[in-house]
């Protein structure tokens, strides 16, 4: 019986690090051992059953950690009142920051998808010279604190830089504008997307692409018919992680795009001006807006994986 072969593509340590974020496991799409469909008794074929004391202890331990991690969300829900939500959200202009954040987030996702997906594919397939250099560069931008990114963006696209002057000639500015908000969000979320997408592409066995070409598909067609469908669950997860980063972007935004107000800034300024209680409803709005896309992507990729198992 042929053992499931790991894909030949390079899965970098950086991609592995991002795997946790994207939810795909490299090599997962290699076919399972034949005959794995035969159901049989035994603990291996029935996950999720608690069969021993140690199993029970591990379930309880996992539940404690899980609840602890969810603690902030629980606290948020516990301290909210309908009245507070209603009065906070019905104030004039209260939802403008939400609109700004969602619009900038949508632009960010579009740019990331168009610009960074090819980069991720090239990195996953080892088509770039000095692959470690590319990864190290991405890790640098991943490791930079958002606040520092904001500071450095001022030096890069601020009004007195060459780029800033070029933008000025077409009457654009990359400080305190919608463009600035988008730039800040892109810089905060791009490394998450690229590394997640790289892991997603690396999980597609290159031999499948080769097979598609031997069956008569040009590379672009093979990419569309084989690579993309197989990588899509992982790509969706990477996009949704990027979306969550973009929605919550604060550090870089507070430096170069204080205006137009995004949601996180609204929370911060409300906290500064009127206190904790009035900031909480906006935190709920952020959660409600940022969460559905990742949840949908997660559910969808889980379904795609289940379907593939037959």
């Amino acid at each position: 019986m042929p053992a499931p072969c790991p894909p030949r593509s390079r899965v970098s340590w950086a991609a592995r690090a991002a795997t946790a974020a994207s939810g795909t496991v490299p090599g997962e799409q290699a076919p399972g051992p034949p005959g794995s469909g035969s159901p049989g008794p035994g603990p291996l074929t029935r996950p999720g059953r608690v069969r021993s004391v140690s199993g029970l202890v591990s379930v309880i331990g996992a539940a404690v950690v899980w609840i602890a991690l969810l603690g902030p969300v629980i606290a948020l829900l516990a301290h909210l009142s309908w009245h507070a939500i209603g009065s906070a959200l019905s104030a004039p202009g209260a939802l403008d920051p939400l609109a700004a954040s969602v619009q900038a987030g949508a632009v960010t996702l579009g740019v990331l998808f168009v610009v960074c997906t090819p980069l991720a594919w090239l990195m996953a397939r080892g088509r770039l010279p000095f692959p470690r250099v590319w990864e190290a560069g991405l890790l640098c931008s991943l490791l930079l604190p958002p606040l520092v990114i904001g500071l450095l963006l001022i030096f890069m696209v601020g009004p007195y830089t060459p780029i800033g002057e070029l933008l000025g000639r077409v009457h654009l500015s990359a400080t305190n504008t919608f463009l600035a908000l988008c730039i800040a969000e892109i810089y905060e979320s791009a490394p998450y997307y690229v590394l997640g997408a790289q892991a997603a592409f690396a999980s597609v066995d290159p031999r499948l692409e080769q097979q598609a070409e031997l069956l008569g598909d040009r590379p672009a067609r093979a990419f569309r018919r084989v690579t993309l469908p197989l990588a899509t669950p992982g790509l969706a997860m990477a996009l949704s992680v990027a979306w969550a980063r973009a929605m919550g972007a604060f550090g870089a935004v507070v430096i170069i795009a204080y205006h137009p107000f995004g949601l996180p800034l609204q929370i911060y300024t409300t906290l500064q001006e009127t206190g904790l209680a009035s900031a909480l409803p906006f935190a709920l709005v952020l959660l409600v807006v940022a969460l559905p896309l990742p949840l949908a992507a997660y559910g969808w990729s889980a379904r795609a994986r289940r379907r593939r198992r037959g």
Partner: protein
Amino acid sequence: MLDADVEVDRRDLTVRAALAVAPGERLALFGPSGAGKTTILEVIAGLVTPRRARVVLGGRVLTSTSPPVTAVPPWQRRVGLLRQHPGLFPHLSVRANLAYGHTAAGDEPAELAAMLGLADLLPVMPARLSGGQAHRVALGRLLLARCDALLLDEPYTGLDASLRRALTDLVVALVVARDVPAVLVTHELADAQAFAGRLAILDRGRLVQTGPADEVVLRPASRRAAGLVGYRGFVPSADGAVAGIHPERVVAGAQPGRGVVLSGAVITCRPAGAGWEADLRVDGAVITCRLPDKPPGGEVAVTALDPPYFGPDGAALPAPPRQQVRGR
């Protein structure tokens, strides 16, 4: 007609080989692991860039490194390559996998699926298939994609013997019915013989012998080729020549009319299949022979049926040297 003359550099060796396979003909490319067999197939399929090559399939020049320089990309070659890893697309059902490269309309996919015994599996996802089923789907997918040549790269490694034989028979029937040239790469002589009428032995990047399957085994061109097709003992003869002894070409007892009589002491004896395999020490050489009955201990006489002879340089001798091998 598939005509391939290939020279390709690998990290460890340069592979040089010329093959010609007629439509409907089956050639087995046989040799040890690492001999360069797969590399040759990959050049024919357009997956590897050769140093020098000319590949012509049915009048179409697929690869030519001499002017006019040609390198048809893999997706325009119409060369089917079946590997050990069946490479089914995990996101597509068996039906969609079968029809992947199929462009013409009609009932052909359904007919072929029935012929391959896959009719009930069409809606199933590949993850649910057994190894043999997956290979049948991969084979059907190639055949539906209109390939003009079929290249099989150790496709059945890891499947059990009876399944392997059944799949081989199926491929042979399909190759004959469709009249395409087929090349099987394998390191198992039995697989090569079950599939092909003609055998080419590749060793360290060189073709050492090409010929009908029986001739290659009974009359190896060199001592090295003999070793590859299973000759396990070389008994000294006259003039520095040696006689090659194949374990399965040995019968018990002295039968001077049928070959060379050898006698020697039994060193070890072990069950092999339905019979016994014994190592004998003959004239300072050790030979291995397959016998139906367990040989008694001590000296035994066996007859090697019409063995091939090799000169001191390792090349095959056309006739036995004058002085026959003598038993001790």
